[in-house]
């Protein structure tokens, strides 16, 4: 009798504890997501969110994690910090999600950082690259996508490997996102490349004549592009128009080279552009094939783009940590499981995922891609090599 009562009390206590874990029921784990589903950067919204959600759908199709299905709640942040805070608050307080796997735009994600920390909500960043999101380290915030510092650094290292390159010009936005990359690029190429020009273009600019001609006057061996896709197309179009012939190194936001060709108006304008890539291979490559097939299975109307897979590895890491945390899931166990992930091979990130209590930036490797003469995005590698 006493034994039965004791067992019942234990069960009741365990159930009560479980009931207190936000977003976790006997049958589901609720995960929140937000990204730019509206606005000019919505080009990254649904592709990134769907390419991430497909992992959760795949997990559900295979029976879930420890008997629980993953339920995803999506919100729009419009790439706007105020909207992102509102989205995060809704997910945390109204939807009561277990954790958040979100964030495409750096400014928007950065604005939610305090809310995540204050409410002890685990955040696995999708692709937002601002270094300050994960540094200084917070026990609740993780990323497995390269930060701006690493993007600028890998751009610089690649630029320095180009034979006979001695001078570089920067063209970038005036925000922190671009400045971080520029500073990291300069640090990586100090003593190797001489900076001859730094030109600013604002968002949504439609004419870059003065910037292109200013750069052309200095005749740099390399132009580093710290710009978003739309504005980059304008830069490349004007560069072609005014005969600026040089090598361009693009940041990892420019990964969709076919779209860049479409927007710039010709392949010729994009032919000398190298872009940094945080996924293992271009669309159509052997490495990406399983993930493209998965996207088609769960989102048959989505056309696979390189950026569709930006957040895929982050969801795989979340799933792995949920598995390791076990059936008696709590946020503390989940966070501890995340910090214990070492050498996780996702098949889509270009390096193994390593997290620890002292390092929440899980994979900081990138490789360069370039269009082949036939117009196919082709992996070049960490250092320059001729591909045609």
């Amino acid at each position, binding site marked *: 009798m006493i034994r039965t009562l004791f067992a019942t009390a234990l069960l009741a206590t365990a159930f009560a504890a479980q009931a207190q874990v936000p977003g976790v029921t006997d049958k589901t784990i609720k995960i929140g997501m937000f990204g730019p589903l509206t606005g000019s950067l919505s080009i990254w919204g649904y592709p990134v969110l769907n390419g991430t959600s497909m992992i959760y759908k795949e997990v559900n199709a295979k029976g879930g994690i420890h008997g629980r299905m993953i339920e995803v709640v999506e919100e729009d942040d419009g790439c706007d910090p105020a909207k992102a805070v509102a989205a995060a608050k809704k997910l945390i307080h109204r939807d009561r999600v277990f954790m958040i796997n979100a964030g495409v735009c750096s400014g928007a994600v950065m604005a939610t950082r305090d809310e995540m920390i204050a409410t002890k909500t685990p955040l696995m960043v999708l692709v937002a690259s601002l270094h300050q999101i994960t540094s200084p380290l917070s026990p609740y915030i993780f990323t497995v996508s390269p930060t701006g510092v690493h993007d600028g650094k890998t751009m610089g290292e690649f630029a320095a490997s180009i034979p006979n390159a001695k001078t570089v010009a920067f063209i970038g936005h005036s925000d922190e996102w671009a400045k971080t990359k520029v500073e990291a690029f300069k640090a990586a190429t100090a003593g190797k490349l001489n900076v001859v020009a730094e030109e600013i273009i604002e968002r949504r600019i439609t004419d870059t*004549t003065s910037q292109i001609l200013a750069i052309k006057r200095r005749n740099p061996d390399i132009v580093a592009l710290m710009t978003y896709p739309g504005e980059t197309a*304008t830069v490349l179009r004007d560069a072609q128009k005014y005969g600026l012939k040089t090598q361009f190194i693009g940041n990892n936001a420019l990964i969709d080279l076919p779209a860049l060709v479409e927007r710039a*108006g010709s392949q010729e304008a994009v032919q000398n552009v190298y872009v940094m890539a945080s996924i293992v291979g271009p669309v159509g490559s052997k490495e990406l094939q399983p993930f493209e097939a998965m996207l088609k299975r769960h989102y048959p109307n989505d056309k696979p783009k390189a950026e569709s897979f930006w957040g895929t590895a982050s969801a795989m890491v979340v799933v792995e940590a949920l598995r390791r945390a076990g059936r008696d899931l709590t946020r503390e166990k989940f966070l501890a499981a995340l910090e214990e992930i070492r050498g996780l091979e996702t098949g889509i990130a270009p390096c193994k995922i390593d997290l620890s209590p002292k390092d929440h930036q899980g994979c900081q490797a990138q490789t360069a891609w370039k269009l082949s003469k036939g117009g196919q995005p082709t992996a070049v590698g960490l250092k320059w090599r001729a591909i045609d």
Partner: protein
Amino acid sequence: VEFLIYVVAGTANGCLYALMALALVLIYKTQSFVPFNNGEFFAAGAFIGLLCVKTMALPYPVALAAGTLGGGLVAVICERLTIRPIADSHHLSLVMATAAVSITLQGLARLQWGDDLYTFPTLFGPRSITVLGAPISLQNLSIIALAALLAGGFFLFFGFTALGKKMRALSENPLGAQLIGINADRVRALCWFLSGAIGGATGVLAGPITLLYPDMGAGILMKGFAAAILGGLTSIGGSILGGVLLGITEIFVGAYVSSAVIEVFSFLIIMLVLLVRPAGILGTRTALRV
């Protein structure tokens, strides 16, 4: 050589600003407020033009005509549904109504085109001609030529047609115009149509040098506003002059001062003109509607 490139590129940009300024001035002259939804007529024209050129494979002149007409129709619908019912309200209410329409139209456009940036095919590709050793983009020249044609057409319309004269009469003296039998509602609706048509045409002209997305009109609306302030909100000629001056000046500022200043330049112009010559270069002082 660079000087000539800057002048042509600046003039091309300036022509677009001038047309947007003209669209704003038309409304200001007849209803004494600056509408915030003209950027959406610009976007409507661009997307209609894109539909014609890319989806329906129609020639560019047809796209220009369709974009012009489409922009005008969207403007008339907006006027009929949101402005006419509150036409006698305080001008701030009218301005806010146009801002609300702007946000609504952007939202509606996102339902259809929300997740991508669209490219309008260029008329001439990257081709250019060489003048005095300077490569001059054919696209820029075509914008200047078409904008000049449009502006010329509107000058003729206002100067020499009965309808144009009625519009001018209404703008000069609304009460007097109505006393001599001018139907104010009809003429104002026509003004909105023309304003929207100019916005739509500008959208098609700008299409090949920009990227298309639902809120693409916000930036050029601000430039058009700066151009109208510079030239004079009450002057059609002033709006054209202001646009071209703004386009040329900002490109030279970018080239010889700093490229970081280009985008704030239009705001500086607005502040400077309001401080030094509030009526603008060719504008005249008018009593404010209160």
